[in-house]
């Protein structure tokens, strides 16, 4: 039984088709990313799953139970979902402990004017220990740093042991320098909690590094679902290929073995052709070496610390992006020979 199942779920706002009919499933314990640019409908998708939007069609199931679809409608408070909002939405008038307790039985009984500080026990305690903030249980949200607030939001969402945790752009409001470390932490927390998680993001690095599977969304439709490697090395169309990272879109002639392009001959990840086929070649799948008699010139280079991205002008006139370890540093203007490197390339469907 999947944690989440969408079948034909769709949602429009007036004339805008925010989410086109979509089939999706997320397995228990899986870290699932919905990746796409702003306005592609990913947040709406999340809100459909959470129950904050009513789908215009299709069905939604959480933990195997029908939540929406046909004549069925379950409001958000009765779905077993937890949510972490982009701004964390911590209750400013409640302490960390009370925030976490809110979704638990003990939080239900709490009257806003009674300020009893009870001991931290049970699920509240364990989840705060999980995120490493049980020593700040009596603090208030405004006393915490951004990363700490995020962790409290996560703890609060996890405490009632939901089927799935939904995260809306969870890292976008954090300092860039902290992001990588916090991503790791969140991943560890989620894995240890063994809770399925769906997070929505426009940052492909985030999706690629965190997710077990990614659904790429574009203008309301899910264009591809797969593992990070599949999405990255085997994008189905040009748009996805370009969205997920830098890419060379190259045409060539395919045969059962591989594809011949002006750069050279590449193995194909999937059969294609025969005939003219377009492929996506990642910059790191190419090699280059300085060669007076080479087939390209370095037009521009971008030193990125651990690697360098070269923008080459091929003798045929096209632009080729090549990424090499930064120790292979050559000056702009160098004539080089660019060749296929390792790995098969994916044919594009469009």
């Amino acid at each position, binding site marked *: 039984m999947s944690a989440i199942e969408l079948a034909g779920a769709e949602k429009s706002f007036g004339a805008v088709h925010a989410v086109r009919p979509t089939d999706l499933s997320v397995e228990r314990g899986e870290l699932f990313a919905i990746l796409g640019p702003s306005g592609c409908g990913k947040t709406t998708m999340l809100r459909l799953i959470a129950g904050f939007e009513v789908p215009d069609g299709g069905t939604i199931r959480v933990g195997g139970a029908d939540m929406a679809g046909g004549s069925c409608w379950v409001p*958000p408070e009765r779905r077993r979902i937890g949510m972490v909002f982009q701004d964390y939405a911590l209750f400013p008038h409640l302490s960390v402990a009370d925030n976490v307790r809110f*979704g638990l039985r003990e939080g239900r009984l709490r009257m*806003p004017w009674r300020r009893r500080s009870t001991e931290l026990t049970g699920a509240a305690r364990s989840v705060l220990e999980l995120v490493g903030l049980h020593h700040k249980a009596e603090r208030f949200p405004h006393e915490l740093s951004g990363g700490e607030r995020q962790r409290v939001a996560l703890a609060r969402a996890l405490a009632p042991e939901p089927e799935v945790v939904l995260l809306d752009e969870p890292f976008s409001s954090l300092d860039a320098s902290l992001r990588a470390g916090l991503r790791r932490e969140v991943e560890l927390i989620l894995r240890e909690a063994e809770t399925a998680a769906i997070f929505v993001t426009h940052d492909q690095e985030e999706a690629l590094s965190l997710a077990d599977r990614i659904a790429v969304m574009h203008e309301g439709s899910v264009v591809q679902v797969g593992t990070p490697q599949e999405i990255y090395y085997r994008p189905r169309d040009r748009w996805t290929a370009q969205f997920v990272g830098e890419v060379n879109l190259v045409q060539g002639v395919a045969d059962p073995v591989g594809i011949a392009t002006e750069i050279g001959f590449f193995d194909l990840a999937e059969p294609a052709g025969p005939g003219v086929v377009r492929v996506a070649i990642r910059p790191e799948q190419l090699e280059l070496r300085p060669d007076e008699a080479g087939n390209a010139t370095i037009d521009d280079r971008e030193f990125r610390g651990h690697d360098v991205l070269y923008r080459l002008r091929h003798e045929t006139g096209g632009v080729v992006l090549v990424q090499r370890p930064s120790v292979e540093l050559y000056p702009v203007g160098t004539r080089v020979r660019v060749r296929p490197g390792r790995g098969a390339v994916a044919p594009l469907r469009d």
Partner: protein
Amino acid sequence: MSAARHAGERTGTGPATAAAAVVALVAGLPLLYVIVRAAGAGADTWGVLLDRRVPGLLATTLGLAAVVCSATLVLGAGLAWLTVRTDLPGRRVLAVLCALPLAIPPYVGAVIYADLLGPRGALQGVLEPLGVERLPSIFGFDGAAFVLILFTYPYVFLLASAGLAGLNPHYDEAVRALGGGPLLAARTAARLLLPALASGALLVGLYVLSDFGAVSLMRLDTFTTVIYAELGGRFDPPAAAALSSVLVVLTLAVLVGGLRLRGGGRYTQTGAGYARRTVRPLGRAKWPALTLVVLVLAATLGVPLVVLVGWTVESLGDQAIGDFGGWAANSLLVSGLSASVAVAVALPVAMAIARGSRFGRVLGALAQSGYALPGVIVALAAVAISTRFFSPLYGTLALLVIAFVVRFLPQAVQAEESGLAQIGGNLVDAARSLGASRRRAFAQVVLPLLRPSLVAAWIVVFLTAVKELPATLILRPIGFDTLPVRVWTPARDGLYAEAGPAALALVVLSALPLVVVLLSRRGTLLA
């Protein structure tokens, strides 16, 4: 479309909207009554009025509003700038003092200055030996304007101060870095402050239109005094309704115009907020500026307090303390009740508005029509409607409370609505994602966060209700006198000193919550 901008968009629900509709209906009755009654007034009555009375009253009333608005803008904004943005010595204390005259109702100011500057007054007494036979009359347009300016400028002052305090000081520096002189900086600041200034001027303008006590004591005929007089002798007179309808149209015009000038939407704070504030050195202008401020405070606080205390001491022997305690208790009772009811009843309306639907906005406008209805008119409608349809209600305290609530509901609605707007939209969603029903989310998340706004709303309604005069005069139960009534009644007979104790008590009663609010961290009560 998807995520909520603020909690208000999430909290409006069926029962709340229904409640809001009921409230809006009751609150809209006076307006409806005025329209119906005025329409039925007959061509003769309208003819006489339009021909003879209305032009003069329009000229007087509009003229008064224009003069008072302009003067309070200059005075209020100027004082705000001096106490917020310059190095005026003692400016923090002065800032609180400059707002205090809000506790002195203009009609109390009228009593004081009518006596002091009147032909039988202290100033005349002082100047007589010097050979000044007769001072120019304090009464009439000039006196009314003078008193209104002195005691309504705090509205502008408070809003301008809040605006200046929140104004990003970097604007000032940026303008000057670009080569603009102080005048350009001032103009830029003024333009950025426009919403706050427009709000202040709007409040003052609406107040002047609805004022009854001050203008009647200053013997100036405006719409309110004439309507009040028309009520004499024949309740539900067509003429009073006709004049009321003109006043309502006038008030609505000012309201709409003012809101448009203000830019419609709420003035929200952008930018960092707590940047270090630049302070302009006044240099040689420091002492003249300080003198000016002190003079203003003397006129609006010092003189009134001295006079009132003097009168109180003088009358202490004559007036029975028991009576006096009764009046004060009555004031507290009716104002406290009105404030509580208004705050409770305003909540569904605020929620309906915050929801953002068109229906909600219509409900909101109807519920807030009390803004455009001076006290006299609300009382007129209350009498007519209650004697016709709810006769047990007539002459009771309940009717007075209802009239007060209708009149002051808009203030409560505004305070609560802006409070709702400041609560993050995701909070309600977050609560629901954690299993809380809409009701629990409201009770455990929204209400606690709304509490400061509810308190602010209560205080604002209380402060305004405690000073109310015309509706009280008309609707109060037999023997139920409030402090404003005991100020106005002797003053009307020229027995100014007798008004002293009630006036002093009124000022003290108004000042206490005001001081509390001013000194609290979150600042102005007109947010």
